[in-house]
């Protein structure tokens, strides 16, 4: 039931924001903040109170089911295991920061902005806990539409183009997934006479090879568009660079994770043979993504575009790790999801802060910011180092785990992927050099350093990334059972 409350708080908060904003924008902001923090405290409080231990055999921590459309075997089924739990925490952490970092950025049409922000978060949270495939698709779309508005209304100069592209790419994938879901539904129904969209029921479907391959492709395309995998990554740089800061934070930090989550939750367990069959291809595309994303990132002059391409590169590791079918690799993938969410999110937040002060995203017009803003420089240094995979920071653990176990499967691909790490040092250092080091450009007045609100944001991110780098064990324990279950099947 707490899962329902978590989502309802966000939905209701969003509506309330919209209604209040015409009277008072400040109250609207506070309502948004309180709604996200409340939603955050629900799973966190539950965890601290019950201290659930993942026991062997049963990974499910919470399970809630209610009737929805019984005529079609659709139920409102939410459940949470370790994997969902860590992703939910990430969602609300970044969600809180997203509200905070749009505090001053959005001055017009505030109510509708926070409405969309909270509804996107609700959709994402729903995606991570929905265990009915119809419901999953439902939430998949719920997070899409408000995100479209966030980009299309509050974005930068080229926002409409970016918003279209984002929507159409995702929707194409989503509809193909819908077809696959329907195919599963009928195949299972015809076998057992029990027509249901429930995840656990459909898990027991036996498929012949051809059917499994096609149905899996439908799911996989939807997820790798979101991830994104290289030939389908086209929407990402536009959407990320045109979105407002909070939008980029949510896109990079959370929306990309839903793709990876989908692959781990649905594609691998439901189609083990079929996904093993295309494993080599997916790994290859993952490696191509790592190298190609890194090279393109190095070539960008637009700061947000640069960071967007680093996401393509980092998500390559996810694809590589998932299709290695090794326990340690999957642990690494989950770590990568969390740490990439935090580190890239932080970089986007910084890009947003710089843009607020300098009114540009072009790194050629920046430089010498360390002199002007030493605090931000130091924090920037930290996250750039996280992004290039420095030990003691979370990303290192993740990429290390992925690489160490893929070496078993394919030494050649692992070697190329490691080269990607070197390239990541190149682009990361370029950010540092161009933005923070060098001569201070002549500006009328030097920009102000971090404000108290911005300190809260970067402090939370810093603590999280350092903690995950030094002591990743809680996460590994949490998802251990899930990962073992998937690899065994």
């Amino acid at each position, binding site marked *: 039931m707490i899962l329902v409350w978590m989502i309802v708080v966000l939905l209701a908060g969003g509506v309330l924001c919209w209604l209040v904003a015409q009277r008072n924008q400040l109250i609207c902001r506070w309502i948004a903040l309180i709604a996200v923090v409340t939603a955050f405290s629900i799973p966190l409080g539950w965890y601290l109170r019950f201290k659930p231990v993942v026991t062997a055999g049963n990974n499910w921590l919470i399970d809630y089911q209610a009737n929805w459309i019984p005529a079609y075997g659709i139920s409102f089924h939410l459940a949470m295991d370790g994997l969902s739990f860590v992703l939910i925490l990430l969602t609300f952490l970044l969600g809180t920061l997203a509200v905070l970092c749009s505090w001053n950025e959005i001055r017009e049409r505030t109510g509708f902005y926070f409405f969309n922000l909270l509804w996107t978060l609700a959709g994402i949270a729903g995606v991570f806990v929905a265990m009915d495939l119809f419901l999953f698709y439902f939430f998949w779309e719920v997070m899409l539409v408000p995100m479209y508005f966030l980009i299309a209304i509050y974005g930068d100069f080229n926002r409409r183009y970016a918003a279209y592209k984002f929507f159409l790419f995702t929707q194409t994938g989503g509809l193909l997934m819908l077809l696959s879901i*329907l195919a599963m539904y009928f195949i299972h129904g015809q076998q057992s006479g029990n027509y249901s969209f429930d995840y656990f029921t459909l898990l027991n479907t036996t498929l012949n090879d051809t059917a499994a391959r096609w149905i899996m492709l439908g799911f996989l395309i939807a997820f790798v568009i979101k991830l994104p995998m290289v030939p389908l990554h086209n929407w990402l740089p536009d959407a990320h660079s045109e979105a407002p800061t909070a939008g980029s934070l949510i896109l990079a930090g959370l929306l990309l994770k839903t793709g990876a989550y989908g692959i781990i939750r649905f594609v691998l367990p439901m189609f083990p043979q079929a996904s093993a069959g295309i494993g080599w291809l997916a790994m290859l595309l993952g490696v191509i993504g790592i190298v190609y994303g890194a090279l393109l990132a190095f070539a960008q002059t637009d700061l947000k575009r640069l960071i967007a391409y680093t996401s393509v590169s980092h998500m390559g590791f996810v694809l590589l790790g998932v299709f290695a079918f090794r326990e340690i690799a999957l642990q690494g993938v989950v770590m990568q999801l969390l740490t990439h969410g935090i580190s890239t999110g932080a970089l986007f937040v910084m890009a947003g802060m710089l843009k607020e002060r300098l009114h540009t995203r072009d790194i050629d017009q920046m430089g010498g910011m360390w002199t002007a803003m030493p605090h931000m420089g130091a924090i920037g240094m930290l996250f750039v180092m996280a992004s290039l995979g420095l030990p003691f920071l979370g990303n290192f653990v993740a990429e290390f785990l992925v690489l160490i176990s893929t070496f078993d499967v394919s030494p050649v691909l692992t070697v190329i992927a490691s080269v990607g790490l070197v390239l990541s040092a190149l682009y990361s250092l370029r950010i540092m050099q161009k933005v923070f080091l060098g001569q201070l450009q002549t500006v009328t007045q030097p920009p102000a350093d971090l404000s108290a609100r911005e300190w809260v944001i970067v402090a939370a991110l810093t603590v999280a990334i350092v903690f995950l780098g030094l002591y990743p064990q809680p996460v590994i324990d949490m998802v251990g059972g899930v990962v073992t279950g998937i690899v065994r099947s």
Partner: protein
Amino acid sequence: MTHLQFLALLPFLILATAAIVVILLIAFKQSHTVIQITGFVMMCGVVLAMWYVRDTLPREVPPLLVVDGFAALFTGLIIFSVLVVGLLSYIYFEEREENPKEYYILLFLATLGSAVLTISRHFVSLFIGLELLSVSLYALIAYLRNRNNAVEAGMKYLVLAALSSAFLLFGMALIYMETGSMEFTAIGRALETSGSSVLFLMGIGLIVVAIGFKLALVPFHLWAADVYQGAPAPVTAFIATVSKIGVFAVLIRFAQAVHLQQNTLAVTVFTVLAIACMLTGNILALMQQNIKRLLAYSSIAHFGYLLVAFLSGDAGVGPTVFYLLAYSITLLSAFGIITLLSTTRRDADDLSGYRGLFWRSPLMAAIFTIALFSLAGIPLTAGFPAKFFILTAGVQQNMWLLAVVLVLSSVIGLYYYLRIISTLFAAPPLTSVKERTLHPFFYAATYTSLVVLMCLLAWLGVFPGFIVDQVQAFLQF
């Protein structure tokens, strides 16, 4: 005719009376408002009568008519749409130069025609219903006779509808020659014994042409955009909903009687039609700048989707009803917004006029946005479960080609719906607000009904279960 048969026809008799009552009211020089309110009450009377007689259903009225759950559902849908169209007509025509009173006679006659289609089980009643509908529509479309567009649209519809009626009659004649009967079930029985011959298939083909014209299926869709654009906004809403619902109902009933979905040739023809509708409709709408034309093309695409449900036979009837319900609510709210924004001189059909509507009047824009999302089939709106049920029906019958085309063409469709939506949310130009000339009560009433429609869309989108169960229950008897 027995007492019970008479009782079963009561709703349709009230509907027919409505037109006569309006004539009498005009003769006694009553005002537009009185006519409007009387019409509203009469339509409610039809619904009440349907409720009153529900226990006596199903009842056959041989040889022409049959009143059953199926007919009750479709008639209910038609009356519901007419109620909204009537409400929209009031503020629309009160502001126009034309005397609005005779409009209601035509409106109720057309409704009667459409309702007769839903209960007909015989070629004669089919033809009567269809002609009643078409003839009223000629006049309705050209009702604002001082406008060039309206007269052109009326002429176009007149010529093409007359031609299609000829096709229909010829087709009926061929089938009668082959099977010796004009009753749907008797034709079905004759086919079972003798099999389908070339003449019969030709007859079916000719009928398909006529029906295709009425439903604006590709390649018989050429009139749609011009008529949608030229007709007054409430009449366009009427054509898009009521007239098509009636024709689709009779198509389903005929197909069920003669087992059309088991005839390979017919299935092939309808598959081609469906694919052509989905692709052509969506592609032609892509670059439209005129909202009414755009909705015309989008409704072509939507009837392509409906044909997918139609092709899946008996399993598709429930999804069809649900889809038509969602589609009617959606289109009525969209046309409601168009009507509200129309000025006395011209209808608000130019996309540029909608720029920044959200920041000028958020409520209207919200209603319009939700309607467009529903047309695009986005969750939380009625369009989503509707499209989902149709896909379900299609996949169940292993019609993969149609399912994939449906999915891909709705992605194309998404583009132009998003285009309108992003226009609604764009930065507003500096324009003067339309002046209000009528009593605020009617605006309030229209707004209220549009908000109710919007809530219905959301309710159907989130909890479709109740309606699905009700529809199944109705179709049982």
